[in-house]
Structure formats: structure tokens, C-alpha cells
């Protein structure tokens, strides 16, 4: 086992024996020496352009989509939806087993079935539809990357940019690369096999020309198979390179050799930056935080090297000496906030294992230390500078807890929000940062491998648009708890507690970089998410967490006519909290098509909506909110116009969409009614900005629940069609459309918005439900601020709780829970999610469709 150290040194592909930048660590793009593969002709892609295409003669040769016999269905389970009733995504093994049964052509015909949106009332499938299956052979489909990790807006990749332009749909990827996985093949070997020219990691979609050579599926270069790769450690056999785990799984993790390290792997370092001004003490968050950290101190990810430190701040910055051997923590105050310095170097960040008792003492003492403070100022900027200085030698994670607008020192901010303009229909101002202080600091942090997470707990305007920059560019995350108060707002307090529990114990990767490669001809031009783009295509992630998602936009630079498959590979190089350098690689494979109808058939409407949301947020900051809203509406109008122009034999009346895109107008309408993008409805600026941050950095599932929540009636759930899992019965009520029309006074309805759940109880709700599930005698005795469902020993209650916990199964952050009475004042927050209904300032779904139709006929 001692040999092979030298052979591994050839894998970096960099000229110098020791890499000295992250660029060379993960391996650059195409090397200059590599000649272009012979198979690709030098054909130029047709010019870009957004002209509406006229009907191409070729399209008329397509079999006409079969006309729908009954355009309007009643009931929840219209016959047209039958092919969709596949198992739930959480039963992935089951669905993949069944996936091969349905005929592919049948599936395509179904997704292309024209739907007249104006006539079809019940457009939602009874269950959240699974993402479309790419039209691949069974072998490829079996090994393809999970859609939860890697999704493309078009599961049929158009051959040329011209074809993509004709479809008027955005092309992009949605990634959730560091998602918690239950099964992950981990590979330890001396040589990590990669393409010599484009540095792609070997994956299930490469082809083996013979025993000794493989052809890269991204750049088509032929590479040698190294000797070590001939041996399969799983089956312990020799000479079967195609049976290696790297070639059998599209998601794998490699243990990296020292070539992938610039320095020894860093230890896990956590610094907590706590606001202790009067405002903060008043909100009572400190108590919740300290208690939560005390409870989870043992569960912080790390090893014996883990370091921890605390800094508090009001108008001055306070440090805590926790050196092992002291009898109690020592507080050091730095009042010179214009030029903040570190009072002592080696005892502020201490080894958690060795100083555990002191850390506990401090956490117990902290909430009481500032109870009588009169300090109202906040010197967040200087505190952040101090944190940067403290952390730069190692890197790590800084968690900032802030409760008000920073008022002192560098990075101080002024209130920019005019409350009178909250519901203006005109332009919304101040969506961008007021100062570049936070961005600059974040970039410095990113350079030193420091990630900054921001928890904002404030009742007043705190200029999140400026503050969020500190997390955005350092690959951190943003949490916001508007009007947080430990007594007056119990729901928010509970949410904060649950979030902290997850935040403190979740996996973390340090000093990470991510690169996404795609088949030659495709190119990535825009990235969305929290990171810093270090070189054209290398994302620098000081910290990486399992709850953040990324999106990228792509264009087709060269025709893909010579290939039938397009592949995408995301590689994430990170240091685990145990000091192991690892590379997680995901590879996705999709078919390439030449017909416009096939492009429409493969459209993944959820992915498209998420990508459009990301693009709209960028547009609203760079241009204006109304511009972004117009662009969203135009996206639907253009796409449906393109579809109409394609299918010549469809009746001109009505608003026709292919079945694959029938939810497009609904999702766009829902997007327009999001806090981030809505106008006319009173929205606090911070809440709007937070909603934008969420849309930009959450994974797809979470965004979809937020944009278009799930509504179920749960007072009359039966065991019909229920799931039976591990002896428990989980009822499966159908999804309801988001309109007040579907609510009845006699029912109780559950609305699942991802980060918050509402249980709306009608006035005439049956008393058995109220008694057996909520534990109160009747509707009148229900309190107006219930935040959980009691655990009662009735079948009714058990069934309801089984259903709710089944909904929460795969979620990492547990939602806040509100029981909403029909007559309570809180019901507006429930009704704002019913996106199909009309509000004073926004269209109803039907009006929106008419609006689109009108725009199309222009």
C-alpha cells in the first residue's frame, strides 16, 4: 500500500509539482494543448435571436397531438391524469422500479396533449407530480442522478440554440449538491480517474472502447484506464473497469489525495457573534440561543480539533478569553471601534474539548450578563471586522445574530424604508445594498475560507438588503425572524429554536470549491445562489451546508447534432468537519432532441419556474421590480405563442398549452404574488428582501412549496388510497387548488408552505375533529394562537399526525405551525397564499389567463 504515492501526483494536471491556487486544485477547463475532437464539425451555431419562428415544414410531419375528448373534468381525479398517478417521490426506489414500465412514447404523447387552460378548471394533479423522466434507455435511467440533487429545466436538450430560441424556454440546471444522503458510495483510491483534457471525473455515462481505454462523455477525448482502476474493490475481481463503483453510480464521493489540498485540512472552527444591545436583550433571543447551543454542544460537527469562540457587541466589542485552566471566562472589552483589534491571539478561539466547561459557564452566564444594559447602539461592522481578524488564520464559520440596524462604526446604515410606500404599485426602491462594506468584507472572508451566516431577529427595518451581502458572497445562509419576541411571539420563538437545532447540528463542509462541467457545445453563463465566482466557472464556497441550492443558466454554443446524450457534472471539493478532504461528484445525463415538440414534451415546469424566479430576482435588483414582473409574464406569453405557432392544427380559440406546461401560467402567477415580487400589497422591505434571498438560495423542493403551497382537506381523511408504511397508516388526501372556493366552513384545511404550515379551521368544523385532534371542546373554545397539534390518543389524532409527520419526513428545517381560526386576525397571512384568488391589486388565475391570451393576440 505504500506505492502509488508518486503516480497520484500526476492527477492534478498542473504544471508545477505543488498546486498553489484553488484553480489548479480542482483542475482547469479544457487545456490548450488538446486538439478539438475530430467528431465535432466546425459548424457555427445559428445566430441567436428572439424572432418568433414561422412554422417549419418539418414540424408538420409530426403526428398531431391527440385531441382531448373532454376538455373539462370534474372531480379530483380526472381520467386525463391517470398516467401521472405514480408513487410519491419519497418512495424513490419504488418509483424507479415502476419507471421502466410505462412506455416512453405514451409518456411523451401525454405530456404533449394540448390542454385548453381556459376550460380546464381542475388543473392540479391530485398529488405533487414527480419530475419528468428523461427519455433514456432503462440502463441509463437506472444510474442517472436523482432529480432531488440535479435537475434540468428541459429534460430533452435541444440540439441547437436556434431550436432553444424557438421554444422560448430557459435552459438551466438546479442543483442541491450537498444534500443529506442516506446512501453514498465513498471511494478511496490513489488515482482518481479523470479525463486528461477537460478534467471530468469518470462516471457511468462514459464509454469504454476496450479494456484499456475510455472515452470522455463531455469532451470525447479517449483516455487510458490506469492499472489501479482495473481492480474492482467491491467484487474483488480484476479486469472489469466498467463494474467499478465510479461507473455504477452517478453520485459518488472520493477521498482526495494531498494534491487536492493547498494546506493541511482545517479544523472545524465556529465563532458566534452576538448582539447584546438593549434591543437584543429585550427580544430575549440570547436565552434561546444559549440554551440551544448548550443542548447541542456535543453534537456540533467536528473532531478533537474543533475550535469555538464568542464575540458580543453593542456600542463596543467584547471578547471572551476561554483559555483552558482559567477558573471562569474572562471578558475583554475593545471600545476603539474605529480601529478594532484583537486583544489576545491564542485564547479567544479555543479547543472545544479542552475548554468545554468554560464554554458552558459562559453560555450559562451570558443571558444574565446584559439584562440591565442601556446601550442601544449596535457596532455590527467593527464586530464583523474583529471576527474576520480572529478567523483568518484558519477559516471556519461565523454565525451573526443581529436584532437591529447597525448604527456605529464601519458599515453603519440608515433607515431607507418609507412605510407609506410598502404597498405602492410603482417601483420598489432600495432592493440593493446601501453600502459595499458588507460585500467587500464577505469577499475578504471568502478569501480566507470564512463563511458568514446571518440570523436577523428584528421587529424594525434593519436593511437586510445591505446586511445579507455578508452571507451572499461568503456562501453563508440568511435566517430572518420578523417581530421576534420570546414572550409575545411564541410561534416565532419555536421556529427559531427548531432552526437552531438543525443549524448547529447539520453537516458542514469547509474550504470548498464547486465546478460544473457540461458536454462540449453547452456553456454555463450565469450562476445563482450564495457563493463567490472565483474564476469563470469555479464557485468558491467558504462553507457549504446541506440546505442550500444553486441554479445555473446555460446556452448552446455549438450544435449538439453529433451526440444523442448531453451530460452535466458537478464536482464539490470540501473538507469535512473531521478534517477529511473529499470530492462529491454528481453526473446527470439527458437526451438531445431535434424537434420542437420534443423540447416541449420534456419541459420540467417546476425547474423552469425556479430558474425564472432566480432570473426575475436578479432583474429586479439590476433593473426594476416592474421590469422583472413583465419579464415573467412575457416568459409565459412567449412560450405559449411559440407552442401555438408550432402546432398548426390546433383550434385557434382558447389558450392552449401542452400538458407538460399546463401549470406554467399558474406557477408564474404564484411567483408574481410572492412577497419578493408582489406589488400593491403591503410588504415590508426586509420581508421582501428575505423572500428574494430564499428564492435565490433554497433548493427546488423548498422553493416550490413556498411559491405554490400544498392545500389539503384533513378533517375527513379516510384510509382509502392510504399509504401503509411500517405499521402506520398514512392517509393521502388529494391536493386542492389554492382558492377560497375550495374551502368550506365545515372543514379543516392544512396549507403547507414549506417554512410555515397553517391549519385553517372553519366555523362549522365538525366537533369531533376539534375535540379529537385539537383537544378542545368546540370551535369557540379554540385559542387563537395555537402553534402545535397535541398528541392525543385517538385514531383521528394519530392519523392526522401521521399525515403531517409524513409531509415533514424529508425536510431539514421544521416549519412553524399555526392553527388559524376563520375569524382570527391572523387569517390574512393564510389567505395571502391562495394564489388563484383575486386580490385588490392582483389578477385571479382566470383573469391572468385572459391577460395572457390578450397579450398573445397582440
Amino acid at each position: 500500500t505504500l506505492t502509488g504515492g508518486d503516480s497520484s501526483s500526476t492527477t492534478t494536471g498542473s504544471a508545477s509539482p505543488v498546486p498553489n491556487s484553488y484553480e489548479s486544485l480542482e483542475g482547469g477547463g479544457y487545456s490548450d494543448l488538446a486538439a478539438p475532437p475530430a467528431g465535432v464539425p466546425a459548424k457555427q451555431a445559428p445566430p441567436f435571436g428572439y424572432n418568433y419562428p414561422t412554422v417549419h415544414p418539418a414540424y408538420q410531419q409530426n403526428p398531431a397531438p391527440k385531441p382531448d375528448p373532454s376538455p373539462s373534468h370534474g372531480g379530483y381525479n380526472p381520467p386525463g391524469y391517470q398516467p401521472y398517478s405514480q408513487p410519491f417521490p419519497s418512495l424513490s426506489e419504488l418509483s424507479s422500479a415502476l419507471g421502466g414500465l410505462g412506455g416512453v412514447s405514451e409518456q411523451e404523447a401525454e405530456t404533449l396533449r394540448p390542454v385548453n387552460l381556459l376550460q380546464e378548471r381542475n388543473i392540479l394533479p391530485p398529488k405533487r407530480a414527480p419530475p419528468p423522466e428523461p427519455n433514456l434507455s432503462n440502463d441509463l435511467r437506472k444510474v442517472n442522478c436523482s432529480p432531488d440533487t440535479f435537475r434540468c429545466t428541459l429534460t430533452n436538450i435541444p440540439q441547437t440554440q436556434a431550436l432553444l430560441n424557438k421554444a422560448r424556454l430557459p435552459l438551466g440546471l438546479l442543483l442541491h449538491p450537498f444534500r443529506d444522503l442516506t446512501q453514498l458510495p465513498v471511494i478511496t483510491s490513489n488515482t482518481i480517474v479523470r479525463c486528461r483534457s477537460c478534467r471530468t471525473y469518470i462516471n457511468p455515462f462514459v464509454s469504454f472502447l476496450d479494456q484499456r481505454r475510455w472515452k470522455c462523455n463531455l469532451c470525447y477525448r479517449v483516455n487510458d484506464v490506469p492499472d489501479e482502476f482495473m481492480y474492482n474493490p467491491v467484487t474483488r475481481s480484476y479486469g472489469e473497469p466498467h463494474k467499478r463503483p465510479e461507473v455504477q453510480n452517478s453520485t459518488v464521493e472520493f477521498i482526495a489525495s494531498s494534491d487536492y489540498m493547498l494546506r493541511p485540512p482545517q479544523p472545524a472552527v465556529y465563532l458566534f457573534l452576538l448582539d447584546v444591545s438593549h434591543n437584543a436583550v429585550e427580544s430575549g433571543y440570547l436565552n434561546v440561543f444559549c440554551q440551544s447551543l448548550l443542548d447541542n454542544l456535543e453534537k456540533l460537527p467536528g473532531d478533537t480539533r474543533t475550535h469555538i469562540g464568542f464575540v458580543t457587541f453593542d456600542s463596543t466589542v467584547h471578547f471572551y478569553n476561554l483559555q483552558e485552566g482559567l477558573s471562569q471566562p474572562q471578558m475583554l472589552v475593545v471600545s476603539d471601534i474605529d480601529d478594532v483589534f484583537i486583544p489576545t491571539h491564542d485564547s479567544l478561539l479555543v479547543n472545544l474539548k479542552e475548554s468545554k466547561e468554560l464554554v458552558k459557564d459562559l453560555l450559562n452566564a451570558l443571558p444574565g450578563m446584559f439584562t440591565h444594559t442601556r446601550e442601544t447602539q449596535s457596532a455590527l461592522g467593527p464586530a464583523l471586522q474583529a471576527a474576520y481578524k480572529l478567523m483568518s488564520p484558519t477559516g471556519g464559520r461565523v454565525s451573526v445574530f443581529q436584532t437591529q440596524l447597525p448604527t456605529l462604526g464601519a458599515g453603519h446604515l440608515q433607515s431607507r424604508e418609507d412605510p407609506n410606500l410598502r404597498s405602492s404599485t410603482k417601483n420598489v426602491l432600495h432592493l440593493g445594498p446601501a453600502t459595499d462594506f458588507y460585500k467587500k468584507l464577505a469577499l475578504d472572508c471568502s478569501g480566507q475560507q470564512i463563511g458568514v451566516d446571518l440570523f436577523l431577529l428584528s421587529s424594525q427595518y434593519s436593511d437586510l438588503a445591505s446586511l445579507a451581502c455578508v452571507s451572499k458572497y461568503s456562501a453563508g445562509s440568511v435566517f430572518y425572524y420578523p417581530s421576534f419576541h420570546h414572550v409575545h411571539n411564541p410561534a416565532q420563538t419555536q421556529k427559531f429554536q427548531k432552526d437552531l437545532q438543525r443549524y448547529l447540528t447539520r453537516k458542514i463542509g469547509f474550504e470548498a470549491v464547486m465546478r460544473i462541467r457540461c458536454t462540449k457545445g453547452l456553456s454555463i453563463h450565469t450562476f445563482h445562489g450564495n457563493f463567490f465566482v472565483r474564476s469563470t466557472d469555479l464557485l468558491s464556497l467558504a462553507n457549504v451546508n446541506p440546505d442550500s441550492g444553486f441554479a445555473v443558466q446555460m446556452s448552446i454554443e455549438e450544435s449538439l447534432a453529433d451526440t444523442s446524450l448531453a451530460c452535466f457534472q458537478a464536482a464539490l471539493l470540501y473538507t469535512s468537519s473531521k478534517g477529511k478532504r473529499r470530492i462529491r461528484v454528481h453526473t446527470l445525463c439527458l437526451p438531445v432532441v431535434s424537434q420542437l415538440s420534443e423540447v416541449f414534451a420534456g419541459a420540467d415546469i417546476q425547474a423552469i419556474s425556479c430558474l425564472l424566479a432566480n432570473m426575475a430576482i436578479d432583474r429586479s435588483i439590476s433593473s426594476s421590480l416592474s421590469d422583472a414582473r413583465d419579464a415573467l409574464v412575457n416568459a409565459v406569453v412567449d412560450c405559449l405563442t411559440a407552442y401555438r405557432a408550432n402546432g398548426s392544427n390546433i383550434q385557434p380559440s382558447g389558450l392552449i398549452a401542452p400538458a407538460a406546461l399546463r401549470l406554467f401560467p399558474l406557477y408564474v402567477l404564484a411567483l408574481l404574488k410572492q412577497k419578493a415580487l408582489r406589488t400593491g400589497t403591503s410588504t415590508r422591505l426586509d420581508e421582501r428582501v428575505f423572500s428574494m434571498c430564499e428564492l435565490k438560495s433554497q433548493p427546488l423542493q423548498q422553493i416550490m412549496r413556498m411559491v405554490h403551497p400544498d392545500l389539503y382537506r384533513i378533517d375527513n381523511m379516510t384510509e382509502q388510497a392510504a399509504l401503509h408504511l411500517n405499521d402506520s397508516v398514512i392517509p393521502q388526501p388529494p391536493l386542492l387548488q389554492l382558492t377560497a372556493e375550495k374551502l368550506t366552513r365545515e372543514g379543516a384545511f392544512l396549507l403547507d408552505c414549506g417554512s410555515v404550515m397553517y391549519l385553517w379551521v372553519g366555523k362549522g368544523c365538525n366537533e369531533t375533529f376539534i375535540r379529537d385532534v385539537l383537544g378542545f371542546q368546540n370551535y369557540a373554545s379554540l385559542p387563537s394562537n395555537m402553534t402545535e397539534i397535541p398528541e392525543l390518543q385517538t385514531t383521528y389524532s394519530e392519523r392526522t399526525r401521521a399525515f403531517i409527520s409524513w409531509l415533514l419526513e424529508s425536510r431539514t428545517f421544521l416549519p412553524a405551525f399555526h392553527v388559524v381560526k376563520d375569524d382570527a386576525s391572523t387569517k390574512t397571512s393564510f389567505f395571502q397564499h391562495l394564489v388563484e384568488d383575486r386580490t385588490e391589486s392582483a389578477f385571479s388565475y382566470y383573469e391572468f389567463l385572459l391577460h395572457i391570451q390578450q397579450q398573445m393576440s397582440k
Partner: protein
Amino acid sequence: MVLLTMIVRVADSLPLAASMQEDEQSGRDLQRYQSQAKQLCRKLNEQSPARCTLEAGAMAFHYVIEKGVCYLALCEAGFPKKLAFAYLEDLEGEFSEQYGAKVPSVSRPYSFIEFDTYIQKTKKSYIDSRARRNLGHVNSELHDVQRIMVANIEEVLQRGEALSALDSKASNLSSLSKKYRSDAKYLNTRSTYAKVAIGAVIFITLIVYVRFWWL
């Protein structure tokens, strides 16, 4: 000041443990020394002297090789050599006790990175001028420190390069001589062919001459 500490398996220069640089001011050029340290580790083998000091400008590398493991420290040139070696011996004692048996079997780099905690602590006690009580036992243990070999890092790193240059020259020479040999062979055969051809022509002419003129 001890700026960098590395523990490396000599056989394949696999890093086993290391201590991160502490000082933010020197962070920039430390990168260079770090890559020098890595290159140095690749050059080491069983024949290398077990104890050595390598001067590198304002800095000096000190290393100790013991039981197939190299303990390397980067110090400022002014840092007492005695202290540096005492520090490395100290690390060696603790490391081989804790992990010595596992060293030959590991394949992942920095498998014993948790040893960092001990390195940091030890380092602190050696560089702290107030804790000079260490000095006493340092003096007694390392009286032979004067005999430790001193070399220049550039020389050591370039020695390898010179060797490889020599190697490439030699291989050039050998390929040239091969070429010469094959060329010579080719020439030989050609001249042989020419001789045979001339002989044949004369012979045929002779036969023809005899056939037509004599008969």
C-alpha cells in the same frame, strides 16, 4: 518562532499530520515555504541523513527522520537549533507512541490530523520565552546538536534537478548512440548491397560476353 510543522511518511511522502500556520502577517510568503517543504519531503528517502538543517534565506527547515517518519519544522533562522530539535524529538516521542503502529497501513493524507492539537500545545511551550525551563533538559539531551548536518534548501532541491538533468542528458546520449548504431547498420547493409550488386552486374556481363562473343 516555529511557523510550520509537518509529519510525513518517508516511503511515499504521504503527509500524516501538520500544523496550520498561525501568523496572519507572514501568511503570504508562507505559501512558498510550504511548497518548498512539500518538495523537500518528496526528495527524502532512506538514504537521507536522519537529522538535518536546511537554510532557506531568513528561514530554516529542521527535520528528524525516525522509524520511517519525517518530522519537519520551519523556523526563523534565528530560532535556536537546540530548541527546534528538542521540539521535533518531543513530537516524535508522542507521535510514535500514539500512532506509530498505524503509520505503515494508512493511505489517506493527513490521517492523523488530530495530532495537530498536541503539536500546537508543544509548540507553544517551546516558543514561549518565559517557559525556558525547558532549556535545562534541552541542553543535557542535545549536546551533539553541533554535529547535525547543515545544507542549503536550494541546493538540496536543485540537487535533484541536476541529477534529473544528468539523467536526461544520459538518456539523450544513449538514444543518440542507438541512433548512430542503427544508422551505421543501415549504411553497412547498403554498402554490402552495393558490393553484391556490382559483383552481380560484372558476373552477368561476363556471362553475356562469354555467351555471345566466345560462342
